């Protein structure tokens, strides 16, 4: 899941300041799960914006909408009949969603209400943690489904560093040592042999440093 957090309202207001008719668009997927950009958050932010405008004597019109997904054309198309009635679109999607909407409607001004943060999991109610960097060269099969690139503060492929205390990371004691988890899990599975291999530094040029990445699958294309 892609996680995000709402920007401070002052920053959002600054982006919206010159405009009167505002379409606030949420996304019902990842950012709804992490309680930052779903239907409820659209309602909260829209209420706040309307009240703020009223308190400062400014007349604005705020319309609320939430798409199931803001990163897929079939859902974005639901905006086609309404988007041109507004001066600006405030998107509560991740960065991918904001840009997808912008691409479909090139003449419409679209601004983000969220700061997209990381790929993560819902650890417990109200707690989301990063566990994937989207590096494009997944080695979870070797590291017992614990990503050392993301979850080890030092990103070590050949750990542990030796600095952990009571199974916690020395950089942040709130975080379990990723290498402790890797070794424990491999031990439980009887696969400590996987650690005999020395892993060379990641070849980031495989995916990174070449501009935006793409996945193309002919079987999925029309």
């Amino acid at each position: 899941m892609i996680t995000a957090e709402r920007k401070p309202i002052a920053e959002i207001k600054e982006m919206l300041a010159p405009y009167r008719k505002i379409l606030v668009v949420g996304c019902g997927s990842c950012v709804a799960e992490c309680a930052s950009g779903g239907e409820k958050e659209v309602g909260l932010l829209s209420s706040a914006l309307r009240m703020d405008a009223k308190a400062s004597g400014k007349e604005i019109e705020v319309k609320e909408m939430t798409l199931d997904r803001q990163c897929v054309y079939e859902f974005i198309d639901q905006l086609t009949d309404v988007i041109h009635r507004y001066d600006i679109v405030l998107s509560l999607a991740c960065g991918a969603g904001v840009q997808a909407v912008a691409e479909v409607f090139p003449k419409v001004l679209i601004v983000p209400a969220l700061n997209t943060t990381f790929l993560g999991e819902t650890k417990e109610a109200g707690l989301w943690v990063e566990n994937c960097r989207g590096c494009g060269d997944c080695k979870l099969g070797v590291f017992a489904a614990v990503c050392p690139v993301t979850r080890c503060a030092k990103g070590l492929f050949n750990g542990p560093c030796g600095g952990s205390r009571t199974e916690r990371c020395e950089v942040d004691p709130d975080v379990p040592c990723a290498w402790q988890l890797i070794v424990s899990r491999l031990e439980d599975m009887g696969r400590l042999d996987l650690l005999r291999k020395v892993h060379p530094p990641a070849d980031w040029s495989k995916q990174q440093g070449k501009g935006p990445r793409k996945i193309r699958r002919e079987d999925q294309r029309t």
Partner: protein
Amino acid sequence: MDQKSAGLSITIFFCQQIDPNQDVNRRALERELGKQIRFFPLPCSGRIDPLHLMRALESGADKVYVVTCPEGACRYREGNVRAKKRIAYTQGLIEEIGLERERLELIVTSAGNPVTIDELARELLAREASIGPSPVKGKYA
């Protein structure tokens, strides 16, 4: 000046477990005070959501109370604890738009001193008005 005399519009979300006769009691006060007071009974205060509080303020409430059972006495275990957290979250949100956090207030009833909802509402109305009319009063858009 007390809140009633100041003409403040009061909205009260409350856990209906606190007063078995809440339906009759709140309606009597609603008839007496008209639009100055609005009650929203909840099966448990844990049902309250920041969106309810924002919509109440946007609809013209000057002050919004959320009334819960005493901590540790929630019929559904921790609904009142959740209500407390959601009020705190919403207070942060309204502060961002320049509204006083005091416009939202948690009232935890006392286990040793049960009150009916109309008695409690009268007590709240009799409190000193520490805030004025809301600057965002107006019809919900």
